[in-house]
């Protein structure tokens, strides 16, 4: 095992493109709040937020170039958190 890795060099322009997409998504999420989506408002806003954090994880935090092990760890953490939320709502949602 080589202990001192080197991350591939990522072009400045890649980061800037990702930034542009992130800003666009922010704009969209602001705009859709002016539409009346009813109970889909929360879902819409959270989906866009999830998409944005995926972009940050994938590009800015270099998951695209990292060992899949990091992805597995994040999936585990996410699974645990979502499951905890679901189990909490087994109580609150059905009371």
């Amino acid at each position, binding site marked *: *095992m080589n*202990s001192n890795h080197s991350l591939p060099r990522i072009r400045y322009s890649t980061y800037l493109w990702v930034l542009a997409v992130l800003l666009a998504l922010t704009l969209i999420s602001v705009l859709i709040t002016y539409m009346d989506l009813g109970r889909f408002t929360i879902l819409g806003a959270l989906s866009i937020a999830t998409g944005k954090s995926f972009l940050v994880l994938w590009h800015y935090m270099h998951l695209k170039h990292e060992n899949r092990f990091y992805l597995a760890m994040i999936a585990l*953490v996410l699974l*645990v958190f979502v*499951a*905890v939320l679901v*189990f*909490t709502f*087994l*109580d*609150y*949602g*059905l*009371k």
Partner: protein
Amino acid sequence: MSSENHSCQSNYLTFKGKYAGVWGWLFSTDHKRIGILYLYSILSFFIAGAFLGLLMKLELIAPGSTIMRAQTYNGFFTLHGITMIFLIVIPGIPAVFGNFFLPLLIGARDVAFPRLNLLSWWIYILGALVALSSQFLGSDPPDTGWTFYAPYSFRTGTNMLPAVLGAFILGFSSILTGLNFIVTIHRLRAPGMTWLRMPLFPWSLYGTAWIQLLATPIIGITLLMVVAERTLKIGFFDPTLGGDPVLYQHLFWIYSHPAVYIMILPAMGIISELLPAFARKPIFGYKAIVVSTLLIAFIGYFVWGHHMFTAGMSGTAQFAFSFLTFLVAIPSAVKVFNWLATLYKGSIHIQTPFLWAASFLFVFMIGGMSGLVLGALATNVHLHDTAFVVAHFHFIVFGGVGYAFMAGIHYWFPKMFGRMYDSGWANTGWGLFFSGFLTLYFPMFILGMKGMPRRYFDYLPEFHGLNVISSLGAMLMLFGLAIVLINLMRAARRGAAAPDNPWGALTLEWTVPSPPPVANFIDIPTIVTHPYDYSILQPKDLSK
């Protein structure tokens, strides 16, 4: 290289580093010295906590106020709980034996982040001091129990803040230890030690570390919310501000139930290390034990609701949590069957560590079975908040962690201190402790079924007889404990020199001198076999 050779020659106890004397211990980044620091701190707290337990049992020897007032009793069971849970059993085995033996067991020179490791110990001491300061500063000592249930924890006039903050700080120590162990196990295993050649104690520490990492932050933020509620009057759990006290219980147990597995998994790991060594047989079902360790760690996350069956949860949630509680019993039972199968037709050497391990199996099974009684909805409603619950978790937490800790210390003592203890006294102490333990806690099952509530300094006259037996058991148990501890302390200073491998065990820590050199291994070993391959032993080795 020359300095490395030099440090390989002197052992870690006598090594002279940058600092001399006691500073050489308090500022040492050597995982072995840090393990010993934890050992001494945890044993000191344990003696204090056990003494508090004895005082409570003396109070309960007769109905009415015997030796203390009701409020004193409330303070005692709170302090007893905080000390035992946060200062002893949660850090306990990982901090002491994990620190000392994880690098030795996987063939590493130290943990991945030695300085962070030292910092964890300092944070632990800081947290302990803050938590214990609640007894001496300000108003009356805390009286909520170790669970800090809302809304009482921010309404009571007692000195809650230091206790809550102390528990928060201790969480940091636990998280950093877990983080360190995960990176250590991923990065520093000796060449050739594949995941499935790793001994079972490191495996259990790995599962534990993940729970420490993923569950502790939840209690951290929950305790901070209690602090904010108490100091800034932010409404989180106070019903008069719209908050929901039951949500506090959810958040508290989202951590505190997995915390039970932080306690018990390393204990199971020690037992899995010990039984093959004393049965002179490979462990039965190595992979099944590994898988069940990870399953317990994972499922154990989603059973927290079984602490709240009477708190008014939805029926669906009650059903789901009860079902998962039964589910998590399965991997635990898998382990017990594996241990029994390891012993079957083994060449069993009945020595002190084995006695502790065997009695672990006994008390752990009673604890586990009584857990199922509590995990079933109907019986839980009857038994909730009775002495039955207290008996159950003492069988699991004290019987599980305590016995495994004792098994571990008697097993590894020769390696840690380079000296042998007197096995006659050690066995006597074990016998008294074991009898006292059963006499102390078994009657509490019956008392609970008859309806004696927990956390009261008083009880109805019809419970008197069994309480007397229980209190006498407490004295017998502590007498046995005193013999065990005095025997070990004497041995640490005056015991006969220990050989490198007194038990004829095969894991890596027994291949280095006792006590180990500072750098652990002169050359990092290359692993070619399974850790418990006792078939390679010759008949003459078996006769030892």
